[in-house]
């Protein structure tokens, strides 16, 4: 794990620019935050395939749907809060319902936009997007994953939502790593508890694993980058070994991946379980590290919760 040079939002857009050379068919829609999503990189090189609709997210998604109606692939860019909440009914009824090839570059996922405050923190996006039929949801954690998720989104038919981060954190993946729809990555092997996360919180989970090791606990850390559909086979294999599952996410605790996996386990493979996220609250402005600490999703909190779960077994 080393410090990342670029945020996933930028890595994704860099790949979009590269890919534009090989695939001349797709177009990009932006809503006046091109210098923040980095879609401007594509716009500068391919002005005729770049449509900046201004500060008008519903219109942007509607126009994206129209352009995709005859099969064209459209990448629609904005912040998570605006794609998933401002324009959600357009996304639902005109993109998901007709199952169009619109891929969403969604920046500022979770409280990675910590400093900007609640209005820019997409902490309910996973709930909204995973609930929409036909929508698939990917959350790359690092530079390589972000680039691979671009390719994966383009190759996957129908709408795909890609949650990206505002700031650079860490890099964990090698360039030849493969990313699949419905795939996941086991980042650390362990026997005592399975910790599942995605995006930025994967780095907190890895840090918590180091803390747990000191207590003699070995945690299996899974990066569930494909949030929908998720990799149930890897999950089953892991929890049948560890007998305990902790899901941690930079999202509301309610209706995120935690709820999804608890439901899955209850039906198929009940194990000791807990999940962590924002506990029915909005967060606030502040430095990222301090905000995730205060709102209970940092490595410290994860390690503590993992111990609690394991202690229940004894």
């Amino acid at each position: 794990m080393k410090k990342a040079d670029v945020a996933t939002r930028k890595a994704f857009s860099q790949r979009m620019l590269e890919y534009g050379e090989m695939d001349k068919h797709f177009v990009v829609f932006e809503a006046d935050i091109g210098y923040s999503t980095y879609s401007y990189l594509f716009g500068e090189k391919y002005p005729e395939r770049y449509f900046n609709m201004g500060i008008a997210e519903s219109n942007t998604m509607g126009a994206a749907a129209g352009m995709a109606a005859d099969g064209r692939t459209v990448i629609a860019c904005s912040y998570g809060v605006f794609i998933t909440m401002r324009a959600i009914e357009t996304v639902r009824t005109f993109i998901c319902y007709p199952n169009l090839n619109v891929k969403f570059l969604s920046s500022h996922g979770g409280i990675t936009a910590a400093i900007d405050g609640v209005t820019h923190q997409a902490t309910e996006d996973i709930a909204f997007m995973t609930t929409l039929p036909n929508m698939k949801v990917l959350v790359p954690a690092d530079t390589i994953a972000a680039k691979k998720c671009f390719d994966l989104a383009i190759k996957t038919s129908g709408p795909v939502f890609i949650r990206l981060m505002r700031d650079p954190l860490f890099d964990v993946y090698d360039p030849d790593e493969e990313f699949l729809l419905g795939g996941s990555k086991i980042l650390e092997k362990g026997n005592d508890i399975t910790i599942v996360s995605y995006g930025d919180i994967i780095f907190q989970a890895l840090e918590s694993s180091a803390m747990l090791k000191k207590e003699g606990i070995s945690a299996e850390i899974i990066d569930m980058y494909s949030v929908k559909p998720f990799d149930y086979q890897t999950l089953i294999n892991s929890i049948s070994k560890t007998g305990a599952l902790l899901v941690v996410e930079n999202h509301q605790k309610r209706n995120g991946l935690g709820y999804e996996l608890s439901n899955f386990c209850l039906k198929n493979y009940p194990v000791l379980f807990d999940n962590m996220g924002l506990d029915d609250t909005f967060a606030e402005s502040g430095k990222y590290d301090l905000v995730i600490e205060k709102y209970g999703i940092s490595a410290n909190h994860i390690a503590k919760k993992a111990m609690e779960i394991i202690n229940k077994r004894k």
Partner: protein
Amino acid sequence: MLTTSKTLDERAKNLKTIAREVRLNIIDMIYTAQSGHPGGALSAADIVTALYFDIMKFDPKNLKWPDRDRFILSKGHACPVWYACLAMKGAFPMKELKTLRQLNSILQGHPDKLKTPGVDMTTGSLGQGLSIGVGMALEGKLEKKNYHVFIVLGDGELNEGMIWEAAASAHKYHLDNLIAIVDRNHLQMDGFTEEVMPMEPINKKFQAFNWEVITIDGHNMKEILLALEKALTIKKRPICIIANTVKGKCVDFMENIREWHGLAPNEEQYKKAVECIRKGEQE
């Protein structure tokens, strides 16, 4: 409240001095936080100063006074201008300004009704403040109150369809207690407004929605005061003041530069900015 005993010249001169102080506070806050949006805060500084220090009924000792005028900063990212005015009026201690955007601060990255004394409505997601203003104006009519609702809108923000939905409804209910001020600084995030999304003619658009439209120089205090006073006398129609401004006004290296929309100055730039604003004093 209107300070009618003073001449227009005296009021304008006094407000200009205050506006300089407001700008210094804006730069200081964003520099201290190393995060925030200087451009749009500086362009709106003269307008917000005139509202808080001359025009609006506002009592810092009684922030929930039912008869107070309402203020909505629809372009919420410019909130350092609002926070500076509120602190200088005494709504909360000046030292809070140093905590902008930090954990546990009362001053969030975008305005938060529950955290900041004097903030009547949360904003930060663009294009929705005018609808909130329509609701507040309707509430004022229903309660037979005489207050006015002042809303500062960004020009890029006018791209949002909801603005025009609000414009139609303000006309339907003859909301003469609703005064929208467009901070016409010609820039939005991705560039010049007329390149990103051409909205001209803005005055004719509002006129077509049956609004009264007044166009002014948004940095000329006398024009600002006269326009706001005229707006207060208009009956049966909502009012839109189009204030022509300069994004980054008074900090020469920020003026009309897209990059300064959402960038914090470094130490050297901070010193230069303070110098620029101070230099205005001699003019």
